[in-house]
């Protein structure tokens, strides 16, 4: 079953990383992605720019509305995600526990709702 791990972080706690720190971050996440691939559970991932770069759009109330900023203006913001394919929730939680960002923020784990064969 596919699960998406949503990585939430308090952006205000972030400082601009130095090039060395950036390299280190990339290496840490690279190793994690490597482990996911090696276990054969990796599906997809992305690392997002800060939420001030977000633009939100809706057609919900008839007209088109485009707004600057993220959908929810909360302290903890979505910073990235991983999609993995594992047998059950416990296994997904084990992988979430190994994700580097679990030490600095929250990870929300959600099962896929997509019927099999349409993924």
């Amino acid at each position, binding site marked *: 079953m596919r699960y998406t791990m949503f990585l939430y972080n308090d952006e205000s706690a972030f400082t601009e990383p130095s090039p060395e720190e950036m390299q280190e971050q990339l290496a840490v996440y690279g190793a994690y992605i490597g482990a996911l691939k090696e276990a054969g559970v990796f599906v997809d991932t992305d690392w997002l720019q800060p939420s001030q770069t977000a633009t939100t759009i809706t057609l919900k109330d008839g007209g088109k509305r485009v707004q600057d900023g993220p959908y929810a203006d909360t302290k903890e913001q979505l910073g990235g995600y991983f999609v993995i394919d594992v*047998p059950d*929730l*416990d296994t997904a*939680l084990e992988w979430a526990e190994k994700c580097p960002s679990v030490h600095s923020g929250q990870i929300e784990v959600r*099962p896929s709702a997509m019927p*099999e064969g349409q993924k």
Partner: protein
Amino acid sequence: MIARDPARAALDEAARASRAKLLAVLATRSGDITACEDALAEAFVRAAQSWTTTGVPNSPEAWLLTTARNHLKDHFKSATFRTTTSLESENTEGFTMENIDPNAIPDERLKLMFVCAHPAIDEAVRAPLMLQTVLGLDATDIGQAFLLPGTTMAQRLVRAKRKIRDARISFVLPDRDDMGPRLESVLEAIYGAVAASWTRGAESDDPEHDLDREATFLSDLLVDLGPQEAEALGLAALLNFIIARREAQQDDAGTLIPLRDQDAELWNRRRLVRAETLLRRAKNAGDIGRFQLEAAIQAVHCDRRKSGKTDWISIVQLYEGLLRLTPTMGAAVAQAAAIGEAYGPQAGLDVLEKVEKNSGKNYQPLWAARAHLLEMAGQNAEAAYDQAVRLTKSAKALAYLSRKRERARHRRECGTVKADTD
């Protein structure tokens, strides 16, 4: 006595003895508790039709399992199911039901319990979920035990089962590291079942009620599973103390007899011995927990059988420890009552005064304890009994409290309000 319809009797027996076991076997394999409950209900309906005409099958359990399994397979093949869920093909096709031997059905109730206690399930619904799935209580009874309307409870249970299915929480026993917190919820639910058993008990003609038997069976299983878990031992001890007193707990008319008035000779000695052994093992296992303390309180009460009197001071102290560990209203009221016995009714009434600030005015045990202490103090207890009667849901307690209220009224009318010596 009129001979019972054998089909009806076999159905009742299967519902009592096999329902949870069958549900556990089906649910551990499909992950969908609701669908399994529906399939089992359907199997029971078909059994009611078929067994009366063609006779009770050799193994009712196997018959029910096969019927429910077929119904479940149809459900998973159905068009609505396929378009509304995300279960993968392996789970619907393979659905490893074929390899359960209907004549040797494994007992997977503990797995079912531990799924209900998974940290991904809302904490408040874990115990209710176990009571419903493993012990077969209905949402209304559970709601009553957890002070919630039945409909609210039913919605929460449905939501929790959906989460287990959709997030695919697997039905496995947790390993040692994850056992601790989940064990706590499991113990809580088993304890809740025994409390519910007492309120429902009047329906059963068996002194050791069905739920008692189920709950002790499960707590014994837990003890076997983790012999070093002090709290599992503590709960098993507590249950044995409670169940040992069942016979002495009500008179022939079904009226409650409170612990202090019970005939200790009627307590079940075999159960008491087992309880004491379990409590000793719990003490040796270290870690004092809530259930061990509650069992220790019961042990002091049950010592009255040997010594002829109750050591209320020890009971007050044990409640002190319990309140520090888990401050519940029930324990606070029980301690106040014990203080009244140990240090005089006025001391107990003073403590109750403080407890009321937290519990509010609608907590039944508070009024029952207050009425008793007022009576001990030789004061008019009629109004307190009125409140206790108004708030009581159990028929047995109602009969007892109504009788006490009548006596309190009688004393007031005769102008002789003095200590009750009954």
